[in-house]
């Protein structure tokens, strides 16, 4: 192996290496179960589960490679994720023929926002989309001259950009925190966010499958149950509580606060995107990720947990922001 690659891995904080190892170990167990299931219960159809687990391997490989390249790698990865998520959203949302070039304009928020993070312009980042994009876009759409469904379309496009671009920007922002501000570096903080958010999704799903009886929001998300929601909440909160001292500079009180609210935000993101999909009449936002659906299906919770996690950390613990 070239020395530069060795150095890249030697630079990984031990806690993060253990964390990633733990995820890989969990996935190895899941993979073994998946390989055993067709033998134990040949009547079942395990294709979907198999696709889902293989996709998890790919997702984790992408995150590990991105983190190995530091904040640049993570910024590039999430710029790509934001692009695909926004493309999925704007392709399904009801837009008008006249909005074609506005869609191109909306993509420009990705190089703009992520570029501002690269240039360390946090103050401008905070207002670039919620103030300036929100003012200029409706004006440009007015210039296009089509007023039918104008207001609804402005709301659709701006909401999509906030969810898919602005909220995900919290992750590269966290990566710009100096290593000495967190016990396992900036990547450790991002790791806990990604782990807790995805664990919440998986644990809610598993608790729902095992114990689900009472539907929680039948008109929006008929498969979600109170048992799944509460089980995921308690288990994810415990996970965050135990890992917060390892990966974040939070005091126990503030760690408890994040442990309490982050699973709620994940549930909220999941349910909100379910409502959007139900309105649009689609089950998945695309078929890009086998067994999962689209990128937006995979990151729906993350679009809510990322800004919450970032702002609580910034408020209570990070000198940089």
């Amino acid at each position: 192996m070239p020395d530069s690659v060795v150095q890249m891995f030697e630079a990984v904080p031990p806690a993060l290496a253990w964390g990633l190892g733990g995820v890989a170990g969990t996935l190895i167990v899941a993979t073994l179960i998946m390989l055993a299931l067709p033998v134990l219960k040949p009547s079942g159809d395990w294709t979907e589960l198999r696709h889902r687990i293989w996709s998890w391997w790919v997702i984790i490989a992408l995150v590990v490679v991105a983190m190995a390249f530091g904040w640049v790698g993570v910024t590039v990865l999430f710029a790509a994720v934001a692009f695909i998520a926004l493309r999925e959203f704007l392709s399904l949302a009801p837009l008008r023929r006249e909005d074609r070039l506005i869609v191109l304009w909306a993509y420009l928020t990705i190089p703009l926002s992520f570029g501002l993070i690269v240039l360390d312009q946090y103050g401008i980042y905070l207002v670039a989309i919620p103030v300036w994009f929100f003012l200029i876009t409706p004006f440009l759409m007015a210039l296009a001259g089509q007023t039918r469904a104008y207001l609804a379309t402005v709301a659709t496009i701006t909401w999509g950009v906030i969810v898919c671009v602005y909220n995900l920007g919290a992750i590269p922002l966290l990566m710009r925190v100096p290593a000495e501000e967190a016990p396992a570096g900036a990547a450790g903080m991002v790791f806990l966010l990604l782990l807790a958010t995805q664990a919440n999704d998986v644990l809610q799903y598993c608790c729902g499958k095992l114990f689900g009886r009472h539907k929680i929001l039948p008109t929006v998300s008929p498969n979600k149950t109170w048992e799944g929601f509460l089980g995921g909440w308690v288990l994810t909160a415990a996970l965050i509580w135990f890992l917060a001292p390892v990966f974040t500079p939070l005091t126990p009180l503030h760690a408890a606060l994040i442990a309490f609210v982050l699973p709620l935000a994940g549930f909220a993101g999941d349910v909100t995107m379910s409502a959007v999909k139900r309105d649009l009449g689609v089950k998945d936002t695309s078929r890009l990720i086998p067994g999962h659906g689209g990128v937006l299906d995979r990151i729906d919770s993350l679009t809510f947990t990322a800004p919450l996690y970032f702002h609580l950390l910034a408020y209570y613990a990070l000198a940089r922001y």
Partner: protein
Amino acid sequence: MHSPDTDATRPPSMLRQIFLTVLVRPFVQVVTGMDVIGREHLPTDGPAIVCANHNSHMDAFMLLSLFPARLLHKVRPVAAADYFLANPALSWVSLNLIGISPISRTVARGADVLAPARAALARGEIILVFPEGTRSKDGEMGPLKAGVARLAEAFPEVPVIPVWIEGAGRVLPKGAHTPVPMNCTALVGEAVAWPGDRPRFMAALRARLDGLAAEAPPQHWAA
């Protein structure tokens, strides 16, 4: 203008193979994020006729991206000679990189415009045809020309596979020059069997394409 019958002798080109796999495929993925529904219906070898709706220049690139690299040398979009062979540069790209089989849209009565397509099928190739004969207005499928029925009649055992392309007319509509990335879906249907006569064939093909369109996700303008 090149004579359409020169393409029969053109050898499979490595340049075209590289162009289609290294440039076209990633471009289609970034700009259309193409999802494929019904991939199992795609022909695994030639000869075959693939029939798709036509709203955009993206259509041919998307259809070419449906096939594995090892089959690409057999896959040929049938494209209008008056448009794609209009000048030497476009003509070179169309013939050597995209690998079109040119078809004349302006020809004297009695001339056999389908001869190159028929020859391609006889060589065992997969031809991609747009029976509308032109790019329709975005979001619509125009009347289908019966040339494809004459091909199907001449080769009744060759599968005719319908493909509905949803969304390409938004990425690059007729008359536009800037592609805008938006998700698209290619829905591949079951082969249309030769029913014995052309009118029934055309009706079956249209019904199959309409059926696929009804299954597509709402990747079209709301109004």
